[in-house]
């Protein structure tokens, strides 16, 4: 146990990040400074207990980020010990307990996420305490179990999906007196964090509306739109296998887990029932409604159960095989850990550059994935979403604008900040923020979107674009320009061979062009006056979600891509 504990300490020190990196981390950092759930500090569904403890931690450690990282570091160590104890009690074997806990905490997904400023490490630590106390008899342990379970939900409310079924299972397995204790303590424990959350949101009705809006978001995006182009097998692979790294690692481990499940069923081990039920319910919910992009981190309760069954399923050389897996796991995530420890994350690097390169009156126009980063690091640059910012400032030559972009760019004068890619980054993370750019938006490259122009999109290493609807309009700034250059493209993925686009300036047809699939054109159109309105009318369009046999769930109507607008 001591050697395993030392391994956890050493690996977590190696995995300490230098700066914040992901979306939620920034929101948690803002929440640790000022708990304002309505402003998404922290993000829904609220994380009240996590934020409360984080604020306590902030009284000791001044930095928002360092306070959360320190909290998670401690939670990891506590979590490791209690998970080992829980697994030991469930299996009746100390070796399985330590091996199972080591497998979980040394899994690639935990190596990457447990030291970041997320809520996961603490939530899992509390879940582990709950699991451990669930395996012990007596009123005191029943109360402790219920308290830990309530705390875990208050820390990371998504864990309710695993904890509530586990609670039912534990209740059913206990005597009446313990059942009553569990229900009462759990209810009181939940109220202890729910009431502050309710007060922070502004009352019971507002809390309901707040949580309902999050549920609506879940139904619209996570359970639907985000699953575009994800087959059922891909979703299952994402939630079950990818937490365990490359296929050469995950396949043997999952095989061992299956062996462990068979062994547990054969042994008719009642102590494993709560864990198994929590695992089944959480996995079903994850497969049905969770965003696969969030995949590996959101499937942590599943990963935890798999770790237990895999440790149980290993026939021999248990410690040696777990040590081997841990080394492979470290190898797999090495690229992320190394870059994260030695350099600021690309969004932070980009924000630092922007703060130094642009005057205080500049306005930062952020892409949505960088909203928290812009809010936290670029508050002096009045951050705004791109389209509202363009609408407000497209004609203000006195206000420098720049785009804070989640991806690379070929725009002139732009600066791109990046971490090197790796399989671990692609499979364990949401695959955002590896490449971030600061793109200056000089007056001649600005416009005001009027209608039918979708938000800016980009690929990590490619150029950005905006999809236009069949009819789209934009307004040019009032600059003394004689012509406008428009670059339009039809990507190879559209369901038509070419598209005919008519471009009008101030209501008069200026140019008609046919763009073949997979090509782009640059139109150079003379301008009669400053501030002209450009209208695009495309002959063909499509809705990705309606493509025959398409797994794409994008409901937008798309015609042609607008790549660039430049006034000359």
């Amino acid at each position: 146990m001591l050697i395993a504990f030392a391994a956890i300490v050493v690996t977590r020190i190696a995995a300490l990040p230098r700066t914040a990196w992901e979306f939620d981390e920034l929101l948690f950092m803002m929440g640790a400074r000022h708990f304002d759930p309505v402003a998404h500090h922290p993000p829904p569904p609220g994380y009240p207990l996590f934020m409360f403890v984080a604020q306590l931690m902030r009284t000791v450690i001044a930095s928002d980020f360092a306070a959360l990282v320190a909290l998670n570091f401690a939670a990891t160590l506590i979590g490791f010990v209690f998970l080992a104890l829980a697994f030991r009690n469930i299996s009746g074997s100390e070796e399985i307990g330590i091996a199972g806990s080591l497998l979980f905490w040394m899994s690639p997904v935990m190596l990457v996420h447990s030291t970041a400023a997320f809520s996961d490490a603490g939530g899992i630590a509390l879940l582990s305490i709950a699991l451990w106390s669930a395996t012990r008899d007596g009123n005191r342990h029943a109360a402790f179990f219920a308290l830990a379970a309530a705390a875990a939900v208050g820390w990371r409310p998504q864990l309710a999906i695993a904890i509530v079924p586990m609670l039912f299972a534990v209740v059913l397995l206990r005597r009446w007196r313990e059942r009553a204790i569990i229900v009462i303590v759990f209810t009181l424990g939940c109220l202890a964090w729910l009431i502050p959350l309710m007060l922070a949101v502004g009352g019971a009705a507002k809390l309901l509306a707040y949580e309902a809006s999050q549920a609506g978001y879940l139904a619209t995006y996570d359970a639907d739109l985000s699953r575009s182009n994800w087959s059922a097998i891909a979703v299952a692979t994402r939630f079950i296998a990818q937490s365990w790294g490359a296929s050469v690692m995950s396949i043997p481990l999952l095989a061992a887990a299956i062996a462990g499940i068979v062994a547990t069923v054969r042994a008719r081990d009642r102590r494993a029932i709560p864990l198994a039920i929590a695992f089944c319910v959480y996995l079903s919910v994850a497969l049905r409604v969770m965003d696969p992009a969030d995949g590996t981190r959101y499937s942590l309760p599943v990963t935890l159960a798999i770790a237990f069954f895999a440790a149980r399923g290993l026939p021999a050389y248990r410690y040696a095989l777990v040590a081997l897996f841990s080394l492979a796991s470290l190898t797999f995530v090495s690229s992320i850990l190394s870059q994260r420890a030695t350099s600021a994350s690309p969004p932070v690097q980009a924000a630092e550059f922007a703060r130094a390169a642009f005057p205080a009156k500049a306005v930062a126009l952020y892409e949505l994935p960088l909203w928290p980063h812009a809010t936290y690091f670029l508050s002096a640059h009045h951050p705004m979403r791109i389209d509202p910012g363009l609408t407000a400032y497209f004609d203000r030559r006195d206000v420098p604008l720049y785009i804070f972009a989640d991806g690379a760019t070929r725009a002139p004068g732009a600066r791109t900040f990046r971490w090197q890619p790796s399989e671990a980054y692609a499979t364990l993370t949401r695959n955002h923020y590896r490449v971030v750019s600061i793109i200056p938006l000089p007056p001649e490259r600005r416009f005001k979107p009027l209608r039918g122009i979708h938000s800016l999109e980009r690929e990590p290493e490619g150029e950005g674009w905006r999809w236009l609807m069949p009819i789209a309009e934009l307004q040019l700034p009032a600059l003394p320009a004689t012509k406008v250059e428009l670059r339009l493209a039809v990507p190879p993925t559209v369901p038509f061979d070419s598209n005919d686009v008519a471009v009008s300036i101030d209501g008069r047809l200026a140019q008609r062009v046919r763009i073949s699939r997979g090509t782009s054109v640059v139109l150079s159109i003379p301008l009669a006056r400053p501030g002209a309105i450009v209208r695009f009318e495309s002959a063909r369009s499509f809705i990705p979600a309606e493509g025959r046999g398409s797994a794409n769930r994008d409901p937008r109507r798309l015609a042609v891509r607008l790549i660039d607008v430049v006034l000359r």
Partner: protein
Amino acid sequence: MKRLPPLLVAIVVAATRLRAIPRGFWEGEEVRFARALLTFDPFQQQPEAPGYPFVVALGKLVNAFVHDPFASLIALSVVASIAGAVLLTFAFARILDDEWCGAAGAALVYLSPAMLVFTPLPNAEAVAMALIAAALLTYARGDELLFGVCAGAAIAARPQVIVAMLALVLFARKRRAAAAFIATLVVTFEPLVEAVGVDRIGHYVRANWNVTRMPWREVAMRFIAHPWGPKLLSLPLLVVAAAGAVMLLRPGERRVFGVALFGFAHLAFCFATADRMDGVQPMLPAVVATALFAAAALRPIARCALPLALAYGAGAIVYSEPLIAQRTAGLSPPAAATAYAARMLPPGGIVVYEPSLEAFARDAAFTSAPLAALNALATRSDIPVLLLADGGTRAPNAKTFAWPDSDVYGKVTTEHYRVVSVIPLPPPARYIAGSGVFQLERTADGREWRWLAQDATITLPPLPGSIAHLELSLPENDNTLTINGRTIEVVHGKTTTIDIPVVSNAAATLTFHAARHFTPSGETRNLAVQLLSLERRQSQFPGSDPGN
């Protein structure tokens, strides 16, 4: 007492490796290994083919804690060198039934100039040699399972030993060893195969497979003698090894035959496939067989074996010192030149690199492009261009970074990277190479040229200047060359200059026709004359400009 020989070897090897830790990257493959620790992308040559998956995996593991790819690979190499020396001592001691002879054999291997030069670097050599040593030890001990694992891991660390290791595994004729060998290969190569794709493995391996031709005698010298240093060191050692082979290779000595088979199989593989320009590096695994035989010859004087081997090692250290001292004192020429180019490149500029410097250029923060981009850049006078050249130059305003030449550099290493230059290419010196114009070539002393075929064309972009100033040469035999109708004699061994009138600010095409041409042995190119330089200039005589 049994622990003393390996301990002594470990101390000596540790001291030599710690003394030889380089200050930075030297060869392109090292940069690619370091990049592979962050992004394992075989198709981007990270690492170079054939992949070295186990070294990359170990490097990544170390880097998870060290957080610096260069330092991680160096640490791995130093630790692997010490571990490998100890393992080889045990292996040889087992085979020769004598610890002192075993230690002598291991010392010979690890103190040879080839190993002194290549194993302290951020590359695959030290790890591969340690795994080979582990495979030989487990083979000698008859530990089937571990032998299979180590043999498979050695191939995953250095796939070029596949023939030799396969021969050893087959020779061992142990089922469990074969099963473990195959299982290890499957597990260690799975990430590589997954990254490359099963259908593209052949293409991937062939893409980086160059065999530069060289006379057989020279190849034999390079692969058999040069790993052991100059004649003074290598000749006595090879004579002793030959005597040891005669003493050792007797019927029934299966373990010895196994090591001999490993060495000869790898030697044959290198003769058939290794790039002669890589120096002795491809041959490293085979030196274990030679060292075993040399150590065997010392069995009658076993107590003197290790001192004798250390005496040889002292000679090898002195021989290797010029290169090792340079490497430890400062940045290598390619690293220094790349850093200089990064400082000197004007905003918006591009660094064009010669093929051997691709890894350095792509790893740098500046925009870079291969030599093929020169044609496109000829017409972009708005883009500043620097050429990163593997060799010397006499071009004006160029900066050359060089290590002094030494016997060890010439005999043991790759013949690249000793002299590297950063050469500004101003717009008047750029042109579009058409048919019959071969790639840039250069020597370390600064001679540079492009061979022209019997018929060749060059287009000058539209720039000011009414004269195309050419410098031409030939290494041997004179030739007669006609350029745009003007005929000149190009005398061998001398630089011939000619000014061809062109229209200022207009594109101009130069058409070359040579009276004679030749094809060098071992090549397919048809060569006529060397173009040393070409530059558009203003006429020295006002009014003579046909464009005015």
